[in-house]
């Protein structure tokens, strides 16, 4: 049987996606240049300011740094904070899938 929403008030369980896929809002996408990203260049954990500043918590503290595009809303804060300007915000319409 199809599950239905039985809540009678605004209640949700904190989990990824409980508010829908917020990545749908995005019209510019952060694209990381591995040749500039500090942890990639140095080959060890470093910097991760994008991880720290991302308001959505969708950046990983890994090498390489990854971003969950289902929920990245394209705000560009990571690009703004990245010290070596390794992140470019690219318009979604200009990205060929």
């Amino acid at each position, binding site marked *: 049987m199809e*599950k*239905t*929403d039985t*809540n*009678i*008030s*605004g*209640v*949700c*369980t*904190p*989990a*990824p*996606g*409980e*508010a*829908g896929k917020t990545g749908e809002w995005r019209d510019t996408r952060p694209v990381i240049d591995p040749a500039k990203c500090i942890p990639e260049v140095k080959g060890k954990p470093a910097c991760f300011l994008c991880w720290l500043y991302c308001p959505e918590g969708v950046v990983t503290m890994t090498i390489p740094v990854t971003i969950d595009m289902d929920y990245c809303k394209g705000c560009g804060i990571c690009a703004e904070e990245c010290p070596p300007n390794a992140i470019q915000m690219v318009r979604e319409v200009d990205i060929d899938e």
Partner: protein
Amino acid sequence: MSDVRIITGNEAAALAVKRAEPGVIAAYPITPQTRLAEVLSEYVEKGELKAEYVRVESEHSSMTVCISASTVGARVFTATSSNGLLYMHEQLHWAAGSRLPVVMCCVNRGVGAPWSIFNDQQDSFSQRDTGWIQLYCRDNQEILDTVLQAYRIAEEVYLPVMVCYDGFVLSHTMMPVDVPDAGLVKKFLPPYRPHTILSPEDPKTINPVFFASRRENADGVLCDGYMEMRYKMQAAFERSRTVINAASDEWAKLSGRNHGGMIWEYMTEDADLILTGMGSIATEATLAADALRAEGIRAGVVGIRAFRPFPKEEVAQAFAKASAIAVFEKCISYGYEGGVCSDLKAALYGTDIKAPIHNYIAGLGGRDVKTRELVEAARTTFEAALAGDAGNKTIWLNCHTG
């Protein structure tokens, strides 16, 4: 065994709250509600009521405390009047939208400006569309019994309930009141079960931003959007009609006292002329009906006990045989007419009832409403109907200005 005490409306309300055993009370004193807040704080101070009495700096905060406590599973109570109620306005919507069974007494008082501490019903009337059930009481016994019924109704349909009674006319007037014993109340009022249990083991986000459309949650369940949530609230109101009537019947069985569910009627069976209103003005109307009958006019009274949900089916039945209707109201929707009158006309639309409806705005800011004034007004309405004048009118009763 009955325990009849001679007490004021505020004391009757306080005794009912004591019997309902709320876990949290947060009330900010305001005339004419003050004595109610005081008596409750005395109960808590003396240990007669094991509740947390949260002292707040405003009515906005008192409602916020009730919302929070109710959310985590406490039965709650607050009370206010007039501008205090208006100050709560935003939180009234919040309590209703969260579907919390908060019970509040509104001790009806006119609102400023200009300042009035005296009685009319503009305060609760102006909060009509906040998603609260509104019940109006006609005497002190009914106040006590209605507060108990309010908990039962609220906790069954998960809607907040405002128990309204006239400031001074009832709040400060002593009457004999039969106080039910704790055992009887326990039989009537099961413990409060919150619709959502909050606990660290099962964390939940309460009232996040809802989007216009429905959306899937992490489990792939298509969840309600804002509009669906609001529809559920309206559906709860529709359901509350039967719950209000059932609570009244059940309490009547246990206590022997029946104040009516959605409405009450007085000598309406053969009535040609029906007077109607909410609260103490409707009690006054029963005296007027007696006087009119002594003159040979078959008069009766319909008391509107539930204003929201509006008793649309009940009034269509109760007024079916009336040839003239006089609506007495202590409030007005400025720019139109009294709110009960508008609702009544809407409820009668499409029925065979073609009686003229005269709307009397009366007793604003505590102006005394005398039985003989109601008699004269209702007689005028009746005579207009006899003369074939089917027009509806709004008349300010006993109001003289240049």
